[in-house]
């Protein structure tokens, strides 16, 4: 049976909708996602909830699953994600190739960092398999795969030495920030867009805050005070964003990545902003569930099938970008692309629900 509507699926569904819309750059509806008024965006939410969901793999607090069982499940989950990533990347490459032929435009082949796949297939395919070559907008799942591969360590460390997990994760995070350490890409020169050494911190925070003890317990006990602090900061951040006021990064003290706003390194500004935003808005789920149940149900439906919807959304957003380029449609086409894309996502998620019931 599919899970009942719950807050985690609801917010995951919300993140999936936003990721889909934001992955069609330049479309009109992009400005209505929360990043327009925020220092962070739905990527932080998505990874945080992935960490939060680790507790479901661990089993209930009174009867946790055996470590071997948990590690096995996480390993299988990582494998499933990796396979899903490979499938959608190959589909994306095929879509770009077909579009290039259809429009007689070789430039399409270079779009989204796919050029090396066609001009240097030997190196590029090695890179694709080892995740060192990533297509544009297809770079979250590689991060997710790495995080899931690390997650057994997270669980084991937490089970053996629970007080150590946060300091270890924070130390890795700070070291990466101070030393500007990240994963390189190959064969094209560059860096991973989502630095796993930094984004693991978001993942671990999600895991720790999901728990009733430790950091999660502390946050729960002081939630009112945290919200009182969060409200003016979130409002101030929204005003700054709206007015286009940003700190000049060259004015920041060293090490600069500790003070600037950078998505790749998930700098402290972003993670703190996201956590404060989450404390303010997480309770609105109760409101939606009570007064707009169909809306809450729809987002939860997407969130329940997050991998499927994410993969579908990645392909649909690429299709949307291709259509926008081919037909230069403006607002009407943007509306069609976004509405049809979301409609297909809902239908497929509904089908997945039906399949789960039927099994």
């Amino acid at each position: 049976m599919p899970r009942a509507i719950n807050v985690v699926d609801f917010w995951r569904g919300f993140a999936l909708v936003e990721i889909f819309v934001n992955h069609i750059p330049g479309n009109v509806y992009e400005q209505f996602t929360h990043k327009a008024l925020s220092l962070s965006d739905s990527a932080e939410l998505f990874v945080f909830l992935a960490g939060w969901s680790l507790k479901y793999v661990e089993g209930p607090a009174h009867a946790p699953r055996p470590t071997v069982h948990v590690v096995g499940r996480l390993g299988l989950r990582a494998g499933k994600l990796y396979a899903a990533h490979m499938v959608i990347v190959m589909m994306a490459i095929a879509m770009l190739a077909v579009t290039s032929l259809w429009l007689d435009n070789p430039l399409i082949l270079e779009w989204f960092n796919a050029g090396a796949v066609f001009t240097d297939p030997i190196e590029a395919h090695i890179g694709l398999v080892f995740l060192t070559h990533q297509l544009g907008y297809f770079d979250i799942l590689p991060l997710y795969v790495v995080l899931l591969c690390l997650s057994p360590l997270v669980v084991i460390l937490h089970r053996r030495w629970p007080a150590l997990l946060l300091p270890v994760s924070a130390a890795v995070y700070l070291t990466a920030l101070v030393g500007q350490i990240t994963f390189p890409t190959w064969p094209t020169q560059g860096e991973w867009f989502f630095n796993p050494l930094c984004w693991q911190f978001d993942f671990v925070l999600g895991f720790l805050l999901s728990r009733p003890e430790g950091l999660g317990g502390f946050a729960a006990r002081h939630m009112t005070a945290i919200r009182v602090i969060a409200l003016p900061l979130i409002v101030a951040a929204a005003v700054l964003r709206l007015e286009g006021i940003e700190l000049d990064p060259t004015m920041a003290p060293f090490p600069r990545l500790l003070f600037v706003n950078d998505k790749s390194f998930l700098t402290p500004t972003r993670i703190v902003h996201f956590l404060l935003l989450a404390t303010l808005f997480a309770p609105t789920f109760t409101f939606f569930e009570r007064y707009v149940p169909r809306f809450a149900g729809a987002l939860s439906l997407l969130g329940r099938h997050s991998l499927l919807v994410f993969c579908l959304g990645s392909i649909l957003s690429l299709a949307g970008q291709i259509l926008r380029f081919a037909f230069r449609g403006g607002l009407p086409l943007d509306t069609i692309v976004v509405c049809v894309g979301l409609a297909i996502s809902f239908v497929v998620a509904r089908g997945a629900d039906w399949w789960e019931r039927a099994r």
Partner: protein
Amino acid sequence: MTTMGRRVRIALFLTALASATGARAEAPVAPSSSACGLAAGDATAIAFPNLERAMKERKRIVAVAIGSSVVGGSFRNGDYYELVEGFLEKTFKGLDVVVVQRGVSGELARDAADRIRLEVARSAPDVVFWQVGTADAMAGLDPAEIGETVRDTIRWLKDHGVDVVLIGLHYTPVLRNDAEYQAVRAMITQVAREERVLRVRRYEVGETLEKLRAGKADTATSGEVATRTDGCMAEDLARSLATGLFARRP
């Protein structure tokens, strides 16, 4: 042209550069292959005061290459920044050139503008090579908005002691009559001219090479022409930098 052919051409190019180094004051402009030379046209000397200062004071220049996915081309084409590095290091003896590649695929100008500021804080470059316009044009963004973003960013970079080279839009025959694509191209050209920064004429180089190919009944595909364009771009960029640096040397 085959890959082997291109390698031979690059080798010849570097050999020519190496021989040119001995008489560098007299021959600042790198010899280039005839096709590239025809395509590149006349290189206007644009000053690079920050590069020049870095050369004098540190004997080391740092360049950040940024923009959409195609900032460095594909793998072998991506080496064209190594070609630029090699050329400058051979031309200016004792100079250490570092190109930091920070291209993000499909990145729009407005996102790249934010990252440029971060990269200046992070890598402290003397020059930024900014591949701009192609992703924006393909995403159908407003040319005026793109122009404003590029202009603001150029001024910010100049205020922060960083020179700028804009790398223009890509060429492909089917986009010759695409009004939106051409509008973005015109906007980038206009901004570069008004702000007096070097614009590497990627589109024009590609267009000329395509015409040369057609004239010779060359059987190269459009993709191969694009690959040649990347090689010529490297030459164009290297020659323009050298021209600008020599032009300002006392």
